[in-house]
């Protein structure tokens, strides 16, 4: 059952005060708070159930291994992947993208090839590809973003060529909140023989994706943006591709046998999980996914849509306020500017009023240039936010506007 006041009690962070004011947390696109069951599980494992996975015969090691592999199954089901071999745990979205950039890049990308990304990407889905292109002498090509924040998908076939080795696209922009038509994009890319990596950093929290239905070849996301612990993430990869890709990092657990003459590697997914993974964090991520699933994705989406609709309406009361990314559907975030007001000034004053918002380039410099601004202000909501919090924040913005524009 989705009862907001009960749900809010599950998140200890929400009941605190900052600067003597009740915290209003609108920076959920950066990281979400953790519900009590996740905190309790991580605490329990750190206190008692801590044994290194995949190697020990003892009780604690076995328990941790079981839980870790259960988490893999939970993630598989969440993404509707065809097997657990396709689910690799990483330290986060950025680590997952870098894994693909190195490993896929090593195997498939050569001088003269190209990688296609979009203008709507987060720096984490730009820079690893730039580095890859520099290493390989490949070319980075960019699909521009429309003024309303949507992608001109119809331009894709012209941009993709026989030399295109991968298309990397975000499921939802962390700045504009616009959800991209992943299935259409994948279809267009596959028609040209190009595999697709989908950055789910902002998408996983709104219900993830069915990777088989969408048809994407890679899907990556972070645990901490999905009510799970920091330092956890997931790389889904289609098995045929992951099989072809060489290990990226070497170390424990990714090997079958080691001798100084030759090392043979473990099968999937361990081939990509060198070293002791953040197994306690991963178990926490499983708990977080279970928690949201119990609430129900439909109810979560409904509450987030209510919030974003309410905020869109209320924010437009402010004269000179410009919202970015009008295209639908949207996730639950809104980025905006108020004429004559620097977003940093507004964010700093909001902070003093207990309201955590985000300001600056939002890790997306190319988008800032696209919209010809130095920065933006961003409110990003979670299902645990309330319309009353939005009202308080809008009133605060009105006050700030008055303060900053009086001569």
């Amino acid at each position, binding site marked *: 059952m989705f009862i907001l006041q009960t749900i809010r009690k599950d998140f200890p962070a929400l009941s605190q005060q900052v600067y003597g004011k009740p915290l209003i947390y609108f920076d959920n696109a950066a990281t979400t708070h953790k519900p009590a069951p996740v905190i309790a599980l991580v605490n329990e494992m750190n206190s008692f159930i801590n044994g290194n996975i995949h190697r020990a015969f003892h009780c604690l090691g076995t328990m941790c291994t079981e839980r870790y592999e259960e988490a893999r199954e939970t993630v598989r089901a969440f993404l509707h992947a065809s097997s657990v071999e396709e689910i690799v745990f990483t330290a986060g979205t950025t680590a997952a993208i870098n894994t693909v950039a190195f490993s896929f890049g090593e195997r498939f990308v050569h001088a003269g090839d190209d990688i296609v990304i979009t203008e709507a990407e987060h720096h984490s889905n730009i820079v690893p590809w730039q580095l890859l292109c520099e290493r390989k002498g490949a070319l980075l090509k960019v699909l521009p973003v429309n003024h309303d924040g949507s992608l001109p998908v119809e331009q894709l076939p012209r941009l993709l060529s026989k030399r295109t080795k991968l298309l990397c696209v975000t499921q939802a922009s962390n700045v504009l909140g616009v959800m991209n038509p992943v299935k259409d994009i994948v279809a267009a890319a596959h028609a040209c023989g190009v595999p697709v990596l989908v950055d789910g950093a902002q998408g996983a929290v709104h219900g993830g994706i069915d990777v088989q239905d969408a048809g994407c070849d890679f899907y990556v996301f972070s645990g901490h943006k999905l009510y799970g612990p920091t330092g956890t993430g997931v790389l889904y990869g289609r098995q045929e591709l992951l099989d072809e890709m060489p290990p990226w990092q070497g170390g424990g657990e990714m090997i079958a046998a080691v001798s100084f003459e030759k090392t043979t590697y473990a099968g999937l997914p361990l081939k990509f999980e060198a070293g002791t993974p953040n197994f306690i964090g991963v178990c926490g991520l499983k708990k977080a996914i279970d928690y949201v699933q119990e609430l129900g994705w439909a109810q979560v989406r409904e509450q987030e849509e209510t919030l974003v609709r309410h905020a869109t309406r209320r924010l437009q009361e402010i004269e000179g306020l410009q919202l970015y990314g009008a295209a639908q559907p949207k996730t639950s975030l809104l980025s905006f500017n108020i004429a004559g007001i620097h977003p940093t000034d507004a964010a700093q004053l909001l902070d003093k009023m207990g309201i955590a918002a985000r300001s600056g*380039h939002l890790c997306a410099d190319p988008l800032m240039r696209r919209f010809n601004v130095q920065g933006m202000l961003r409110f990003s909501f979670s299902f645990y936010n309330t319309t009353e919090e939005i009202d308080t924040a809008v009133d605060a913005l009105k006050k700030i506007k008055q303060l900053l524009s009086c001569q």
Partner: protein
Amino acid sequence: MPIADIAQQIIDEFALLPDWMDKYEHLIELGRTLPPFDEKHKTDTHLIEGCQSRVWLSAACHDGIITFTADSDAIITKGIVSLLVRVFSGQPPQAVLDADLDFINQIGLKENLSPTRSNGLLAMVKQMKMYALAFLHKKP
């Protein structure tokens, strides 16, 4: 007036404003009254890039006294820029080099000079001291 005395003046000024809102209002006011920065000096040479806001700084030295002029695109940052200019401008290079910035802590605006803020202010202070060092060694 020596740097320490100007700093004390600022501390006294802000002590009259116990509420954070009044402090920030005062800061915004100070930002507005900062002498205008010559637009033609708003070049990359004078730009101190921060992730959140930008600061421009230029300096000249005549008869052993440094004059700083500065600006920012964010008004609160500009308010703090104005405090730094007020403290450091009109001082000999050695005094700028020796000065500490504890007065910013004392007036309750410490977080603005934190490296995590990335508003260019910390880099601005470093740049002011670099100018001072350069002027000190340029002396005939």
